[in-house]
C-alpha cells in the first residue's frame, strides 16, 4: 500500500532545498568542478528509495546526491565532501561525481552506463548471500546507448538478478536530444534484453512508488529484474552553468558571445554550400529553441511543486513539515560551513 504523500514529499523537499544550497555554494566558488543537480527527478528517487532497506544497494550516476540523502547519508558529510574537506563523506577524495557510502551500500560513478554493471554486481551479492535484498541502478536515457548498460540488463536477465534498472528519461544528454540519438523504443530494447519494462510519469511520486513497489516485490521474490522507465525534467539543465540554459535565461548577455563567432564562421569562404550551412545553423538554433521550449519552468513537471499542490489541502501540516525541513537544511549548511576546515 502506498504511503501518505506527505511522507514522500518530505524527502523530496529536503533534497530540493539541499541541492539549492549546493547550487549556491557552487556559484560562490566553494565547490569545484562540474555540478549536476538532481532537481526535477526527486520523485523518481524518492518513490524508489523510500522502499529500500538495510541490505539494499544503489548504483548512482552523476546525479547521486538526492539518492544518498534519501537513503539516510548524513547531509553534513555530503556537503563537507563537496567542499573538499578531509572529514567529508569520502575524506574529500571523491567529490560530486564519486560519492561512496559503504555503510549505505551506495556507489556513484561519473562514467555513463557504469551503474549497470555495478547494480548487477550488487544484485549478485544479494542473490548469492540470499539476503532478499535488491540493487537499484539510477541512470539517464542517454546511458541506454552505452554498451555496458545494455549488457548488464541482459546479464541481470540471464542470471535472474534482483535488480531495478531505473531510467530517468529527461530527453536530454547534455546538449543532445536523446530521441535523435536513440533508435527504436527503450522499453522494447529492455524487453529484447529479457527485462520487463514499465513506463510512467516520473514527476508523480505516487506513480513512481507504485511501479517501484511491484518491481521490488518481483526482485525480492526471485522473479528477476525490471526496467523502470520514468519521464522527468531536469530543472537546472544538464549541469550548473550550462551554456544552453544561460542563453535561455540571459539571452542578451549570452547570445553575442555565441552569435558572433557563429556568424563569422557561417560566412567564412571555404566549406560547404549554403544549403548545408543553413542546415547546420538550423541544428544549432533547434537546440537553443528546444531548450527555450523545454517545459522546465512548467510546475506540472516539477515533482516537488506537484506534490505540494495536493498537500495544500492540509496547509497547516504542510507548513510545519516545510518549516522543519527548512530549518534542518539551514542547520546543515551552517554546520558544514561553520567548523573551520580541519
Amino acid at each position, binding site marked *: 500500500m502506498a504511503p501518505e504523500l506527505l511522507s514522500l514529499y518530505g524527502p523530496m523537499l529536503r533534497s530540493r532545498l539541499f541541492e539549492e544550497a549546493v547550487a549556491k555554494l557552487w556559484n560562490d*566558488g566553494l565547490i569545484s568542478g562540474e555540478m549536476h543537480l538532481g532537481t526535477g527527478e526527486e520523485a523518481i528517487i524518492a518513490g524508489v528509495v523510500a522502499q529500500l532497506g538495510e541490505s539494499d544497494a544503489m548504483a548512482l550516476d552523476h546525479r547521486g546526491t538526492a539518492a544518498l540523502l534519501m537513503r539516510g547519508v548524513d547531509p553534513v558529510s555530503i556537503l563537507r565532501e563537496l567542499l573538499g574537506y578531509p572529514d567529508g563523506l569520502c575524506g*574529500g*577524495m571523491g567529490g560530486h561525481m564519486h560519492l561512496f557510502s559503504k555503510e549505505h551500500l551506495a556507489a556513484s560513478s561519473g562514467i555513463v552506463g557504469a551503474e549497470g554493471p555495478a547494480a548487477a554486481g550488487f544484485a549478485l551479492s544479494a542473490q548469492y548471500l540470499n539476503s532478499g535484498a535488491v540493487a537499484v541502478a539510477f541512470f539517464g536515457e542517454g546511458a541506454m546507448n*552505452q*554498451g555496458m548498460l545494455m549488457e548488464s540488463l541482459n546479464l541481470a536477465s540471464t542470471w535472474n538478478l534482483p535488480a531495478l534498472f531505473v531510467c530517468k528519461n529527461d530527453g536530454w*544528454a547534455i546538449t*543532445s536530444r536523446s530521441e535523435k540519438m536513440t533508435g527504436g523504443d527503450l522499453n522494447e530494447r529492455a524487453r529484447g534484453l529479457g527485462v520487463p519494462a514499465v513506463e510512467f510519469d516520473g514527476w508523480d511520486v505516487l506513480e513512481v512508488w507504485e511501479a517501484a513497489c511491484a518491481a521490488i516485490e518481483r526482485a525480492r521474490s526471485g522473479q528477476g529484474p525490471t526496467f523502470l522507465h520514468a519521464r522527468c525534467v531536469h530543472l537546472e539543465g544538464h549541469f550548473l552553468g550550462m551554456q544552453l540554459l544561460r542563453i535561455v535565461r540571459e539571452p542578451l548577455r549570452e547570445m553575442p558571445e555565441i552569435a558572433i563567432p557563429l556568424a563569422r564562421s557561417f560566412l*567564412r569562404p571555404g566549406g560547404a554550400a549554403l544549403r548545408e550551412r543553413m542546415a*547546420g545553423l538550423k541544428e*544549432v538554433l533547434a537546440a537553443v529553441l528546444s531548450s527555450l521550449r523545454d517545459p522546465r519552468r512548467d510546475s506540472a513537471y516539477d515533482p516537488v511543486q506537484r506534490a505540494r499542490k495536493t498537500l495544500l489541502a492540509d496547509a497547516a501540516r504542510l507548513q510545519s513539515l516545510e518549516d522543519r525541513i527548512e530549518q534542518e537544511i539551514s542547520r546543515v549548511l551552517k554546520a558544514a560551513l561553520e567548523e573551520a576546515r580541519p
Partner: protein
Amino acid sequence: MRTMFFTQAVDDALAQAMADDPRFILFGEDVPLLRRNLLVRFGPGRVRGTPISESAFLGAGVAAAMTGLRPVVEIYMVDFLGVCMDALLNHAAKVEAFSGGKWTAPVVVRVPCGGGYGDGGQHEQSLWGWLAHIPGLTVLVPSTPADAGGLMLAALRHDGPVVFLEHKLLSEMWLEFMGSGARRTVQFDVPAEGRKGAVPRRWDPVPIGKAVLRRTGDDVTIVSVGVGVHRALEAAQVLDTEGISAGVLDLRTVSPLDIVAVREAVARSGRLLVVDEDYEGFGLSGELSAVVLEAGISCKYARVCTKTTIPYARDREDQVLPNCERICAGIRRLMQ
C-alpha cells in the same frame, strides 16, 4: 601574427584542413553544439552528433578511416577511453601490421585530458603514457596554442591513428565547460602561455616526434609535456634565483619520442628530471630513463609525477599533480 586561445587554435587548424579536403569529417557526443562554428561552415554531413556509444563510434571512426574518410573522433575525456579501448588497442593500432603494411587507419582521436580544476579522479587523468605503450599509436600532447594547431594539422595528415590530447587546463573552452561553468568565483592555476598565444596566419604542420627546447639550462634537463612544461618553466625561473640553471624540453609528442633530443640534452646536463602529470609507474617517466640509459648516458635522475588516484579536494589535488614546489625540491635534491 594572430593570437589565439588553445582550443580556438585547434579548431582553426581543423577548419583550415576541412576547407582544403572534404574527406575530413568530425563526430562525437554533442559535437554539433560544441563545434557549432564548424557545423555552420561545413554542414551536418561533416559535423555529426553521436549517441553515448564510444565503442561503436570510435570503432566506426577507425573503419571509416580505412575506407577513404579522414575522421576526427571526439571523446569527451581521456578517462572515458576505458569503455572503448578495444578500438585503439586491437584495431586502430594493429590494422597496418595485420594487413602486412597494406592498410592503415588514419583516424584522429581528439580528447581532453588532465586536471587542476577539481573534477575528481575519474575525470582528470592524463593517460598519455598508457596510450603510448601500444605500438602503432601516435600520441600528441601540445602545450601552446601554436603547437596545438600545428600538431592538429600534422595529425590530420598522418597516415595512421593519432590520439590528440587537449589539456583541459589550457583549453579556454573545456575549462569553462567543465571547470568554471561561467563562474567568476573560481580561479585555477592556468599557465598564461599555454592558454593563449601567437599563432601563424596559415597553419603549417608541426612535425610529429620533434621535441622543442623551451628553455636552455646547463645544470639539469627538465623533460615534460602539456601543463607540466609550464610548471617546469615556472620552477626553472625560481631555481634561477638560486643559481641553478635548468633547461626545459617540451616533448610535444609522447609517441614516438624524440629520443635524440632527450639524449642530447641529458648528456649535456648530466641530470634528468621528468615532470609528468600522467601516473608515475610504467609510463613516460620510466621510458625516458630507459632511453637515456640505453644510450649509455649516465645521469642523475628524478621524477615528479602523479602517483595516485587524483583527489577531488582542490588543495590535495594541487599536491598530487606535479607543481612548482615539488619540481624545485626534486631538482635541489638532484643538485646535491
